[in-house]
Each structure stands twice: as C-alpha cells, then as structure tokens.
C-alpha cells in the first residue's frame, strides 16, 4: 500500500520545531533562552511557506482520514500566523514574569500542531485527537504563570470544563459510529444522504452531542460561563491565542463537519443553532458593557464574535461557509492587536488591564493610541476596517440564505458593541492619569506584532477582494 506523507508536512514541521525547542531549552543557559523564540518563529514561518506551496493540493493521507485541501491550508495559515504573532508579543511578557520560556514556546507549537490536524481531519477520531493535542497544550499554558492564583484557578476551570465538553464530543462520535459504522466524515455523510429524512435516532443524538461539544469549545451561549474567568486568568498573550486560534480551530470543525458534511441533516441542528447564534451575540455584548477590566471586556466581546461567526454556520452552503472563513481571517489581526496593546501597558509584575489604566495612553504614546483605536473600531465594525468587511459578508450571507432576522439582530448587536469599544478610545484620549506604557526600545517585538496587526486590520478592510476569493476557493475545496 502506497503511503503519501505530503499532507503531513506542515504539522510535522511544527512538531519538529516544538521538539527542537524543548530539547534546546534543556541545554541552553538562562541568558541564551531568548534564542528559543527565534527558533519557534523560524519554524512557524517555514511551515507557513510549506502550506503556501502546497496550496491547491487535494491529497489525502492514511485512507483519507487526513485531507490536505485548500480549506485545511487556509486554516493552517491562520493558525501559524496567530502563533507567530503570539510568540512575538510574548517575548517581553516572559521577561517580566518568571514563566519558563522553553515549555511556553513548545506548548504553543504543540497546540498549533493539534489545530492543523483538526482543520485537516476528515475523520472524527483524528479530529478528536487534534482537539485534545490542542486543548491539553492550552490548559497548561493557561496556568503557566504559577505565582498568580487566578491563573491556577483558570487552568483548573478550563481543564474541567474542557474535559466535560470533550466527553460530549466523544460520546457523540461513538453514537454516530454505532449508527453508521464509520468515523470517516465522507462515509457518514454518504450514509446520511442515503436514508433521507429517516435517520435512526442514534445518529441524530450523536449529531447533537457533537454539536454540544463544539459549542462548548467556541463558548456559545449556554456553554459560555467558563470564557471570562479563563480568559482573565490566563497570561495575556495566551488569551489572545485562545480567542483567535483555538476558536478558529473549533470553527474549522463547525465548517467541515456541520456546514459541509452534516448539511443533509441541517433541519435538525439548524434551528437550535439559529437561536444559539442570536443568544450568544446578545448575551456577549450585554455582559461586555458591564465590565471594568478591558481584558474581561475582550473576553465577552470574543463570546459576541462567536455569535456573529455562528451566523455563517447557520447560513451555510457557499455564502455562509466562505463568509465564515473570511471573518475568521479578519478577526485574527484585530483581536491579537488589541491584546498586544494590552500587553504594552504591563509594567513589571503588574498587569494593567482596567479601563482607568488606559486613561491618557493615546496622548502619551500616540502610536499605541492610534493602533488601539483602529482595533476597537474594527471590532465594533466601522468601515473601512477588516471587522466591517467581515461582518458585511457574514450578514450578506445570512440575507442571501433567507435569514434576514439574523442579519438585523447582528447589526443591532454591532451597534450595542460600539458602547464598550468606544469607551476605550474615550479613556485614551479624553482622560488623564493612567499608566505609563512600555516604549518601543523596551519591547521592540511587541511593537512589531502591533504593526503587523494594524497592517492586517487595515489591509483586509481596504482590499478584501483577494482574501475573499481565497476563502471562497477554500470552502469550495471541501469534498
């Protein structure tokens, strides 16, 4: 039997980098540890290059449990980019806290590997394995700063809730396997299309359990309670990583499993998901208004954005799927950028995360003020930034698919979100007495990350055509 290992290349490259970092960490002296960040960045860039050259490949490996289509490659690039920006913005953070850098970078790389496998998995078992590889890494990263009580609490909560959610997912997979005799998604959807409208109860129960498991992972409404505590307790760069990459990986599952393969049973899961989308964005936005910490506000805002993204899942088919992919791409730079600015306010052991700490930052550090304003306006959905184009195509896909109510509620929610996003800008420019932000000379890499995020946010807003066509091609490459 011929075994084609090409589809494994990006994941293998990231794993290799992680192992290298882990091994080197043991033999490097303390003052040489900064080197590890650069190895990680190089490894990620190499993997991104590989994914770029593999674009257009339709190859599968291991009896098509792993499918390296454009969809997988699109997500791979998002994960690699996010991990890269996370590492760039962590360098300064790790120096200020005593988090061990070797394990930190290695775990980011390992969980990135898990995400890549999740996006490429055409088999529920491989999807589950990818999910676990990702989650276990992120559980540990959450509790990395061991001196902070909140971090340990967050890691424990995340682990327990995550294990609970995984239980749902795995039980769902077991039921689906019991009814269809396969864990391969292509075979399952073939089975579903054969027995049209007369599915055994077992399959439907399985689909619902997988639904709940994935809803936990994106923090959708009734399963969102862990999000704010975990996001607040985790080290800030990891919070950014979680709210972008982990969420994108779970949405890769939503897109491939639900929008594409389970589309036959859509009238089973479509209605509850419709309600879930509305509740998730409304609850996220309403609770975000009440927060006094910017980090916690961003956590609730990430719940709200999960709600917007669910619109794409509900709308389904080509318009919904490609709008979902484009929104994930557009969401990455603005969120990572906002967390990077938050990191620039960190001073020694103290995390400065409240609205009051932001007072006057725009006047003292004009660049940080400008960047944060761009991210906040983009998150709120102002044109011509990436948040606007992303939302535009999401709402458009809802209208095209006949879910006008979702588009209207989404637009009203964006309006609601302006309240808390603009509060940051008001604080930065119209008040005084906040903290002193780090200058460029002290945290150069952090500033580089912010510049990249600004370019991404503005670029995807002004020139979305190419990215849009890429996300369309990616979604249509699903088999």
């Amino acid at each position, binding site marked *: 039997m011929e*075994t084609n290992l090409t589809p494994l290349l990006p994941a293998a490259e990231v794993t290799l980098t992680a*192992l290298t970092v*882990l*091994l080197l960490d*043991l*033999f490097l002296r303390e003052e040489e540890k900064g080197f590890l960040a650069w190895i990680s960045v190089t490894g990620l860039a190499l993997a991104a290059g590989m994914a770029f050259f593999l674009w257009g490949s339709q190859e599968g490996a291991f009896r098509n449990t792993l499918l390296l289509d454009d969809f997988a490659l699109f997500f791979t690039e998002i994960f690699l980019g996010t991990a890269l920006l996370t590492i760039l913005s962590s360098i300064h953070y790790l120096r200020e806290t005593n988090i061990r850098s070797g394990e930190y970078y290695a775990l980011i790389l390992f969980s990135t590997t898990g995400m890549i496998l999740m996006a490429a998995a055409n088999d529920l078992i491989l999807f589950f394995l990818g999910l676990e590889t990702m989650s276990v890494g992120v559980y540990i990263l959450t509790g990395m700063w061991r001196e902070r009580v909140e971090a340990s609490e967050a890691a424990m909560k995340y682990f327990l809730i995550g294990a609970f959610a995984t239980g749902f997912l795995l039980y769902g997979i077991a039921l689906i396997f019991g009814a269809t005799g396969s864990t391969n998604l292509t075979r399952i959807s073939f089975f579903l299309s054969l027995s049209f409208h007369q599915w055994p109860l077992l399959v439907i129960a399985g689909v619902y359990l997988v639904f709940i498991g994935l809803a936990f992972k994106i923090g959708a409404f009734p399963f969102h309670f862990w999000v704010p505590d975990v996001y607040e307790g985790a080290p800030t760069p990891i919070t950014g990583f979680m709210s972008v990459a982990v969420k994108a990986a779970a949405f890769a599952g939503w897109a491939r499993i639900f929008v594409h393969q389970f589309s036959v049973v859509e009238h089973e899961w479509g209605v509850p998901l419709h309600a879930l989308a509305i509740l998730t964005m409304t609850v996220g936005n309403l609770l975000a208004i009440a927060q006094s910490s910017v980090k916690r506000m961003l956590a609730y805002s990430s719940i709200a954005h999960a709600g917007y993204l669910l619109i794409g899942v509900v709308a389904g088919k080509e318009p919904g799927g490609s709008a979902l992919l484009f929104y994930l791409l557009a969401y990455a730079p603005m969120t990572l950028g906002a967390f990077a600015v938050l990191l620039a306010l960190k001073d020694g052991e103290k995390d400065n995360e409240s609205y009051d700490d932001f007072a006057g930052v725009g006047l003292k550090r004009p660049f940080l003020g400008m960047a944060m304003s761009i991210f906040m306006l983009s998150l709120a959905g102002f044109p011509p930034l990436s948040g606007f184009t992303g939302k535009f195509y999401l709402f458009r896909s809802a209208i095209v698919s006949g879910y006008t109510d979702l588009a209207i509620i989404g637009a009203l929610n964006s309006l609601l979100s302006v309240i808390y996003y603009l509060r940051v800008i008001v604080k930065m420019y119209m008040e005084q007495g906040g903290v002193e932000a780090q200058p460029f000379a002290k945290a150069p890499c952090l500033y580089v990350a912010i510049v990249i995020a600004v370019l991404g946010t503005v670029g995807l807003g002004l020139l979305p055509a190419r990215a849009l066509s890429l996300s369309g091609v990616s979604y249509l490459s699903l088999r």
Partner: protein
Amino acid sequence: MADPYLAVAILFFFAGIVVLALLLIAEKVGPKKPSPVKGEPFESGNSPKGDARIRFPVKFYLIAMLFLIFDIEVVFLYPWAILFRRLGILGLVEMGIFLLILVIGFIYAWRKGALEWE
C-alpha cells in the same frame, strides 16, 4: 419480528428484579448481630491502624505519570512487532520516529530532575 433489542430489555428487567429480590430477602430474613469488630474497615485480616486519609508526597504522582507514558509506549510496540513483516521498512521508520519522540520526552524528564527522589 420483535425488536432485536427486546431480549436485552427483558434481561435487564429480570436482572433488576433478581438483584432487588436478593437485597430485600437478605434485609428481611438475615440475622443481624452487629459488633464493633465487624464495623471495622477490612485490611486483609490485620487490625487497622491510623487514618486511611493520609497525605502522600506529590512525587508519587509524577512517578505514576511517567510510568503511564512509558508503559503506553511499550504497549504500542506489541501490535507493531506482530505486523512487522507486513508493515515493512516504512513501519520500522515510523516506529523509529515514535520512539525518538518518546526518548526526547525521557531526556526532558531526566534533565528536569523528574527522576530524582530527593
């Protein structure tokens, strides 16, 4: 034709009845002569000493974890060894990669001092 699972349902039903019946009969008919010695926890015939809930050093957990990891490694070697001829050179290379990753884990644990007791 009745549902094929009907037999299982009937089995469950009667199993439940038998269990309940046995418990009830033992409760109603059996003689009860409680004594302090009978109430003691059973420790293989010795009289128990001290509290069962004592604190263990956290080191045991680390050792248990390491044992688990390397135990699973060995378990994976069995199916590979049985199918060695059919998997051929590719199987050998794959197992080499698998073992290499575990050896890296072992070196990591060693250098971090996870194997030192004191």
